[in-house]
Structures are given as structure tokens and as C-alpha cells.
């Protein structure tokens, strides 16, 4: 298990890991609450985080370890298209700026913990709420599993093989999340983000200097792509890729804040101004992500070869850790690896809390124990967070990790199908509740069908094409499949959302004409503008089930 391990790297990595784990357990006493046996405390950190904590928490939540290894790996392999992560994380904040403050206000007033809680109250449909909750859980599970892929990439680069280190790491994570709830990732995020900022800033100064400047780096990348027979790669976007680039960035941005873990971070904040301030300052992470993406080109210039497994599978996710290993002294490489490893823990913790809250609020309380006390809800969530993590661990260890990667690809597409019920629902009740269900089903069908059709092609030197993967080979759906005479591709999630919206609209018109009964909306227009200091409805025992 530990042959050829770089001892210095391992010592630095382990030390930082232990420090962070201790913080995770101590976090239960940080901003101490009367009791952690309440979802507002365990699951949302007391709903009281200010601008700084929220910035670190949401930043640590959205910019995950998997992002940090997969985005440069994509740039390394395909070039410009991998840079979509930058426009994606630029446009997301202006798009959600006005939406999230409405969601925060209505959740503050009614004590909502999950997006499905809101859907339940707004549209008066427990079926729709259940669909939103299940979609959220299914989309989040593979995302948690992928955080393990991030840690694994780092361990491989350090020379550690075998599954025991990952099992140990995840067990510790599960224990302190159970113990401290959202306070644990919130506190650890300070360390994670600080380490990431230091590592990336040092990397973009030191590595180009060592490699002979940016000219050399882009030159090497250009030479590699010129040699490659794939017409889609290059340091600029090939013509047909431009639509895919734009729709992928836009669609991913729409999806990001529909993910339950993003909403958990938002609802944990103290007020509307905290959210607004964060929407303006979170792009600092996008800048780091952009620089990180360029590490893919640095890896090309430095002749990094990704690690190949015993079965002959190339793991391109290892290129950034290998680049660090090659360019940095061992002690700093250890710091860099710790940054990525800890970077996996923060989102994994928040995601498992978010999935657990969905389970508790929208399945357990709705269908199993209707009169659950706050303490019972907290207990249910704590146990569910353990189940979720064990599931993610089994998915990575027991199945091919490619399964989780495919699922996560679909995860972005399916979470997008909750947009009409959640995001549009914040603005309008025009859509009929059954139409929203129909639209969701249509979007899911189109999402699955399109991604199923997408093949992963390998272009050979002699001009022939090998199909490396028959199905789920990416998220760029060729429009020629729909009969268009073009080589242009479009983000599959975008197409699925369009289908969803069209069906929602048509079905609403039909249902209204048929006089189908409307759901009861228990929210009031002025509650969408409530801010900190306003009374909360759920503190007053007037709501009856």
C-alpha cells in the first residue's frame, strides 16, 4: 500500500488532515447553540452566518476537490472547451442574485430547510415536493462520490495505493459531520480555502517561471492539439463547439444553485445583505478556478503523463497532483495535496447534510413520522448523513468510478429539471402543479435520452474514429441527431430544460381549461421580501398540519 511513498509529502498531508479533523469535532462548540438537536442548528448552523463565514462556506462548497482536478484535466485533454468553468462561474452570480434573496426570505419566514419544503408550501403538492427532494438526493449522491475521486487522485500521486486510506478519511469525516453538523465544514472551509489560494497563487507564479513563460506553455499546448487528430480540441474553440461552450456555461450556472448543498449554504446565512454581498465577492474563487484550469496547459508543457492503472486505464485526474509533485519541493507538494484533500471534505460534508435534510423533511416527516419533533428530525438527518456517505464510499470502491462520473454528468441535467418548480416558483404561480410534474417528467426523459445517445469518440491518427464509449460519453449533444444538417453540439441539459418549460406551459394551459383543482399556496407576497429581524412564522405555533 505504501511502496514508493514520498515521506515528506505524506507527513505534511497527514498533519494537516489531522488538524482539520480535530477542528471538525471542536466545531460543535463554535458559536455554541443551546442544542444541536434541531435541524436549524445541526443542518443550518443556526441560520446565523455572517458575510465572512458564508463566503468561505459557499466558496468551499461550490468549488470542490473534484472541480480542482477535473477542470484542469479537461483542459489538458481537450483545451479551450474546458475553460467553460470560467464563464459558468461568472454568470451564475448575477443570474441568482435576485432569486436567492427571495428564497432566503420565504425560507426565513416559514422555517424551510430544503428547496422541496418551499415547493410543498408554494404549490400545495406533496408529489411535486417528493419529486424535487428525490431529484436533489439522486443528483447529490454521485457528487459526494466524486469527492472521493479527488482524494484518490492526490493519494495516487503521493504513491499511496489501496482503499484503506480513503475509508479512514471518510470515516473521520462522517464522524465529525454527525457530531457537529454544518458547523464542521463551515469552520474547516477557512483552512481549505486559505490553503487553496496559497497553492494556486504560488503555482501560477512558480510553474510558468520554471517552464520558461506563458509563451512556452501555450506553444506546447498548441503543438499537442495540432498533432492530435481530434478536430474538436485546440487552444481556441472549434466553430461547432461554440454553442456547446455557451450553453454548457449557462446551463451549468442555472443548475448550480438548484443543488441542495448550495441552497443549504445560502439558507445558513443571516440575512439578505449577506447573500448579496457574497454574490458580488464569490467570483474571487472563479479567478482561482480560471488559473487552475490553465494548470492543464502547464502539465502539457511539463510533459506530465497521467497515471495508468494496472488495468491500463488512464486517470487524467492525476495530472494536477503530478504537476505539483514534479514542480514543487516535497513539503509544499504536501501542502498542495492537503489543499485538494481537505477541499474534498468540505463539500462532501455539506452535500451529505443537504441530502440528509431532504430525506428528513420531505420523506421522513412527510410519509413516515408526520409529528416528528425537532429532536427526531435532527436525529433522522444525522443518521441519514452517515448512510449517504457509506453509499458514496461503496459506489467508488464497489463499482467502477466511471459510474459515478456518468451519474454526476446526468446529475447536473436532472437537477436543472427542478428549475420551474423552485426558481420560477419563487416568482410566479402561473404554472399548474400537475403541469410542473409533467414538465419535470419530460425534462428527465429528454435528459436521459440525449445523454444516452452521446458517444465518446477517439480520433485515430489515420483519420478513423473509434467509439470509446457507446453511451453517456459527454454532455454535448450533436444537433445532427435531431435532423439538423450541422456539426454543432448543444448542452444536453439545456435541451432537456427547454422541453421541460414547453411541457409546463402547454400542460398549464390545458389543465386550466379543464378546470383542474389548483394547489393551496400558503406563502404571501410580502414574505418574499422579509429580512433579518423580521418575525419568523414557524416560531409562532399557529401552523397546523
Amino acid at each position: 500500500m505504501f511502496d514508493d511513498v514520498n515521506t515528506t509529502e505524506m507527513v505534511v498531508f497527514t498533519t494537516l488532515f489531522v488538524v482539520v479533523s480535530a477542528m471538525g469535532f471542536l466545531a460543535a462548540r463554535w458559536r455554541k447553540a443551546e442544542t444541536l438537536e434541531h435541524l436549524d442548528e445541526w443542518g443550518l448552523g443556526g441560520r446565523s452566518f455572517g458575510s465572512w463565514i458564508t463566503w468561505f462556506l459557499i466558496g468551499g462548497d461550490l468549488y470542490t476537490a473534484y472541480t480542482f482536478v477535473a477542470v484542469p484535466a479537461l483542459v489538458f485533454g481537450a483545451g479551450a472547451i474546458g475553460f467553460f468553468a470560467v464563464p459558468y462561474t461568472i454568470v451564475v452570480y448575477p443570474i441568482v442574485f435576485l432569486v436567492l434573496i427571495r428564497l432566503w426570505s420565504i425560507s426565513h419566514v416559514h422555517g424551510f430547510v430544503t428547496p422541496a419544503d418551499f415547493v410543498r408550501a408554494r404549490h400545495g403538492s406533496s408529489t411535486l415536493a417528493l419529486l424535487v427532494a428525490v431529484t436533489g438526493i439522486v443528483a447529490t449522491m454521485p457528487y459526494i462520490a466524486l469527492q472521493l475521486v479527488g482524494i484518490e487522485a492526490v493519494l495516487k500521486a503521493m504513491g499511496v495505493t489501496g482503499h484503506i486510506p480513503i475509508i479512514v478519511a471518510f470515516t473521520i469525516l462522517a464522524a465529525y459531520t454527525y457530531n457537529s453538523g454544518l458547523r464542521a465544514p463551515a469552520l474547516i472551509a477557512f483552512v481549505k480555502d486559505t490553503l487553496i489560494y496559497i497553492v494556486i497563487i504560488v503555482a501560477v507564479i512558480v510553474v510558468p517561471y520554471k517552464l520558461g513563460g506563458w509563451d512556452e506553455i501555450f506553444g506546447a499546448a498548441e503543438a499537442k492539439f495540432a498533432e492530435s487528430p481530434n478536430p474538436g480540441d485546440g487552444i481556441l474553440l472549434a466553430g461547432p463547439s461554440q454553442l456547446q461552450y455557451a450553453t454548457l456555461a449557462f446551463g451549468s450556472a442555472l443548475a448550480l444553485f438548484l443543488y441542495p448543498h448550495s441552497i443549504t449554504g445560502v439558507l445558513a446565512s443571516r440575512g439578505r445583505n449577506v447573500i448579496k454581498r457574497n454574490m458580488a465577492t464569490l467570483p474571487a474563487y472563479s479567478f482561482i478556478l480560471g488559473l487552475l484550469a490553465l494548470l492543464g496547459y502547464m502539465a502539457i508543457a511539463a510533459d506530465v503523463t497521467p497515471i495508468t492503472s494496472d488495468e491500463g486505464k488512464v486517470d487524467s485526474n492525476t495530472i494536477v497532483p503530478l504537476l505539483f509533485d514534479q514542480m514543487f519541493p516535497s513539503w509544499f507538494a504536501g501542502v498542495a495535496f492537503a489543499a485538494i484533500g481537505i477541499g474534498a471534505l468540505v463539500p462532501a460534508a455539506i452535500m451529505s447534510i443537504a441530502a440528509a435534510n431532504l430525506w428528513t423533511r420531505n420523506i421522513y416527516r412527510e410519509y413516515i413520522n408526520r409529528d416528528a419533533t425537532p429532536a427526531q428530525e435532527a436525529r433522522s438527518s444525522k443518521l441519514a448523513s452517515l448512510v449517504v456517505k457509506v453509499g458514496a464510499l461503496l459506489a467508488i470502491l464497489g463499482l467502477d468510478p466511471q459510474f459515478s462520473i456518468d451519474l454526476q454528468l446526468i446529475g447536473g441535467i436532472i437537477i436543472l429539471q427542478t428549475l420551474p418548480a423552485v426558481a420560477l416558483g419563487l416568482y410566479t404561480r402561473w404554472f399548474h402543479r400537475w403541469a410542473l410534474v409533467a414538465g419535470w417528467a419530460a425534462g428527465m426523459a429528454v435528459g436521459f435520452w440525449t445523454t444516452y445517445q452521446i458517444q465518446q469518440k477517439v480520433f485515430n491518427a489515420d483519420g478513423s474514429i473509434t467509439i470509446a464509449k457507446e453511451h453517456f460519453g459527454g454532455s454535448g449533444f450533436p444537433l445532427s441527431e435531431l435532423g439538423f444538417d450541422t456539426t454543432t453540439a448543444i448542452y444536453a441539459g439545456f435541451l432537456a430544460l427547454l422541453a421541460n418549460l414547453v411541457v409546463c406551459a402547454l400542460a398549464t394551459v390545458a389543465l386550466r381549461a379543464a378546470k383542474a383543482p389548483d394547489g393551496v399556496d400558503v406563502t404571501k407576497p410580502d414574505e418574499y421580501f422579509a429580512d433579518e429581524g423580521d418575525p419568523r412564522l414557524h416560531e409562532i405555533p399557529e401552523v397546523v398540519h
Partner: protein
Amino acid sequence: MTTYEPDRPDRSGGVPDSTRRAARSDHSPWNWLLLLPLVATLYPPLYNREGPTLFDIPFFYWYQLAAIAIGVTTTLLVFLKTRG
């Protein structure tokens, strides 16, 4: 089904609505500014070229990194002009 008792008590605590909450709406002409970062980044033909380079970095890359500043500036401006 979650419903309210029809005779639910007044939860304003006797304070007039007008003084209890400042914001009654999120409407503001400043919000239109939020469209600017979208236009600047979601139309690739705008920046999908190699030159002019900056510190040997192709336009495609430094433009999009610079566009982060456009995003930050507009969002910050809207925040400052609409803060509650």
C-alpha cells in the same frame, strides 16, 4: 396539507407594517446591470481568438479572466445601490 387557522393572530406585534420592514419589493432599475456579465461571456465569437495577447496569454483566456472583474463590479454596484 399545511394550512393556517382562519383566525390566526396578527403577527405584526402591533407594529405598523410600513415601519416593520423596509423593503416591499426587489424592483430596481439597477438590476438591469446584472445582464452585462451574461452578454460579455455567453457569446463566444466575441472572444474566441488568439490576439491580442497579454503577457503571452491568448485573448480567449485573459479576456474571460478579466470578465470576472466585470461580473464583480456590476454585482457589487447593484448590491450597494439596492442594499436593505
